């Protein structure tokens, strides 16, 4: 067995290389400084961010786009606290990332040393697991364990906290013996992936008997690389599919069986199909409150099949009639095999299908048409962007109205083309996430759809994008407001607008973009939208920001008011007279 004497810092970088890490996002500082020295000689590309939150979201964007774990490395104390938000974001959305934080030397832990914070304590409840490594010799095994935990079972973030003394070659405590033969030791971690054939048969029975089934598809489908299997199941059974915010693209929007997004801002057909269903087949979904609305009124007549990798999600919100614990791709494949062999049943679903198509006809996604003199419609911008970009364009978004419109009006026909912050709802997610995705796929077009509130939270990462030559594009839907909050205040707080107006003309986004090395474009007029997008698409040597000045009065419809059941879905005013 080959062994080699080295210091913990070199061992850490080599362990990352051995995990196949090609790129990492980070920012050095005192405690992590010794680990930055071996990066100079490493094959790993390091992208120097401007704020540690950016590093975390970039790692997430990279992981979302590729399925491979994203890696971020930052120093101790304030750097660790700055990356707390991405960790929590990744935890909520099951994104595999590994975050390495520096820590004060082991002897100083607990003394309130300079830039010390209890990083593992702080991040305990927002990581899948975290480690504080205290011996240099343990570094390779811990890194291996971190990647294993992050990427298997239900994926998630893992943090590894590394005290300075065990990586600093000037400190004797950093001495260790590298061996290639390292095995993980996790006696309490055994995710169950195989599915029980008995429950597959029970699930198939429910499917055969159902008159109004709906495939309720969540982000787990993408994590399990199960999009192809899902399509096979849908086509075999002819059952319609709703794709949640985290699953947009997991089933093609252009497919006849696709009903689109359910939930608080889902389209009428997707929401109502779930409400009226007699069987919800939940695949890698977790019955989030934004999907269910008021729980006691959610899909009241539906039996539930719940296929899920995380045992704790099964029965957490809604008790299933059949629970399929295991990898959701294996679950779907087993279901397909069972239904193909023993038949899909002979229940007549024509009435259900015509109900669905009737809803689709009467309640399409729509907005009031623009009339001369009106400000630009944000939905129109998204339609132009959708139609003016290649089909495999990766779209990221921040959180708020622009996010909902992007999810609604884009046509997602490929998995892993939509990256957003669902569970945590992290404003400022889109720009760093787009950078992470673009680093993974430099030859594909990556558009960040952003709001002006979000943009101001993480725009500095456009400097990173320029300097590191990561030419993303930003469609800024600028309505001078915190638009979603404004919408709630208009609808539910008697138009009493409290602290939602940002500014009409400060900052100047075009100038700001240019100062960061981007091309900045401002668009006020609907007629300029397409040409601006075309111009942006031509630019590939630097980032582009288009400041679209859109209508602040425009609201996201449909909408389930908070606390209401999904049956109380509000459609836009011009659809309200349609019979439901």
């Amino acid at each position: 067995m080959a062994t080699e004497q080295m210091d913990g810092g070199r061992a850490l970088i080599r362990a990352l290389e051995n995990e196949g890490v090609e790129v990492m996002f980070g920012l050095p500082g005192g405690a992590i400084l010794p680990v930055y020295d071996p990066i100079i000689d490493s094959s790993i590309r390091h992208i120097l961010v401007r704020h540690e939150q950016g590093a975390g979201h970039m790692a997430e964007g990279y992981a979302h786009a590729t399925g491979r774990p994203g890696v971020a490395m930052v120093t101790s104390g304030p750097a660790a606290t700055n990356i707390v938000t991405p960790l929590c974001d990744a935890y909520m959305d099951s994104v595999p990332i590994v975050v390495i934080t520096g820590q004060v030397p082991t002897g100083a832990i607990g003394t309130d040393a300079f830039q010390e914070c209890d990083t593992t304590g702080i991040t305990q409840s927002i990581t899948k697991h975290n480690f504080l490594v205290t011996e240099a010799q343990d570094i390779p095994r811990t890194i291996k364990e971190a990647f294993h935990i992050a990427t298997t079972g239900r994926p998630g973030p893992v943090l590894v906290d590394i005290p300075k003394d065990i990586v600093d070659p000037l400190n004797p405590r950093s001495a260790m013996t590298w061996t290639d033969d390292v095995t993980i030791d996790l006696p309490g971690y055994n995710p169950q992936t195989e599915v029980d054939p008995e429950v597959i048969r029970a699930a198939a029975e429910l499917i055969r008997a159902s008159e109004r089934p709906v495939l309720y598809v969540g982000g787990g489908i993408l994590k399990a690389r199960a999009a192809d299997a899902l399509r096979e199941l849908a086509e075999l059974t002819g059952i319609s599919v709703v794709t949640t915010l985290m699953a947009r693209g997991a089933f093609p929007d252009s497919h006849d069986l696709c009903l689109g997004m359910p939930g608080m801002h889902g389209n009428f057909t997707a929401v109502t199909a779930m409400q009226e269903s007699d069987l919800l087949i939940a695949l890698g979904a977790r019955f989030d409150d934004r999907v269910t609305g008021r729980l006691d009124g959610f899909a009241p007549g539906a039996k539930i099949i719940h296929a899920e990798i995380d045992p704790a999600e099964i029965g957490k919100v809604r008790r299933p009639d059949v629970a399929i614990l295991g990898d959701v791709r294996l679950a779907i494949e087993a279901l397909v095999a069972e239904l193909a062999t023993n038949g899909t049943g002979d229940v007549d679903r024509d009435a259900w299908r015509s109900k669905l198509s009737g809803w689709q006809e009467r309640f399409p996604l729509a907005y009031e048409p623009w009339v001369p003199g009106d400000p630009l419609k944000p939905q129109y911008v998204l339609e132009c962007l959708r139609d003016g970009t290649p089909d495999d364009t990766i779209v990221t978004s921040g959180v708020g109205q622009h996010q909902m419109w992007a999810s609604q009006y884009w046509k997602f026909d490929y998995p892993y083309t939509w990256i957003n912050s669902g569970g945590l709802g992290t404003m400022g997610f889109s720009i760093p996430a787009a950078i992470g995705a673009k680093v993974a796929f430099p030859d594909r077009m990556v558009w960040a759809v952003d709001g002006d509130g979000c943009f101001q939270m993480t725009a500095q990462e456009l400097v990173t994008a320029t300097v590191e030559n990561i030419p993303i594009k930003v469609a800024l839907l600028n309505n001078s407001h915190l638009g979603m909050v404004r919408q709630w205040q208009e609808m539910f707080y008697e138009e009493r607008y409290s602290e939602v107006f940002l500014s009409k003309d400060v900052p100047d986004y075009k100038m700001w973009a240019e100062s960061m090395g981007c091309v900045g474009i401002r668009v006020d007029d609907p007629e300029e939208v397409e040409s601006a997008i075309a111009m942006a698409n031509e630019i590939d040597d630097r980032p582009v920001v288009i400041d679209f000045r859109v209508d602040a009065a425009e609201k996201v419809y449909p909408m389930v008011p908070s606390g209401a059941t999904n049956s109380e879905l509000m459609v836009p005013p011009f659809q309200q007279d349609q019979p439901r």
Partner: protein
Amino acid sequence: MNIQTPDYRYHTLVVTVENKSGVLARVASLFARRAFNIESLAVAPTDDDLFSRITVVVDLESAPLDQILKQLDKLVNVVEIRELHPGYAVERELMLVTVSAEPDRRDEIVEHLDRAGGKVLSVGTDRMMLSLVGLPARVDEFEDLLRPYGIVELQRTGRVALATLEDNDGPGR
């Protein structure tokens, strides 16, 4: 993991965890984060020093047993969880108590103590230190009996438990 229908408000879980620093904090923080209430908690290393054993009594009014078990099981350092059904577990708790005991009242106190099966650990001029090992409910009763005399200081361990032996056909107590 053996999930039983909860028919008692309090259930005793025996959680085997890796004997590493911070593991008790992970378990405690999980309970806090998910708003699960702990009625009692005892922790100590097992005969195998790689593992510790946590005996925790959970309050099922705060959360369903199923969720508590599954969330606990998600902790990477949790190796095994056993639910001890109240009817099929031997449960004990230790109480140390210092009670005011003027000489003329000592006999009374010792009489209570003997009936409960406790021990006198130490006698001072106006105080006695006692110990009692017993079923948590019996320890409660004894504590109530002592209260009128004046409890100076008291410490209970929280309950520890083992499953009854398999060849024992009756419920253990």
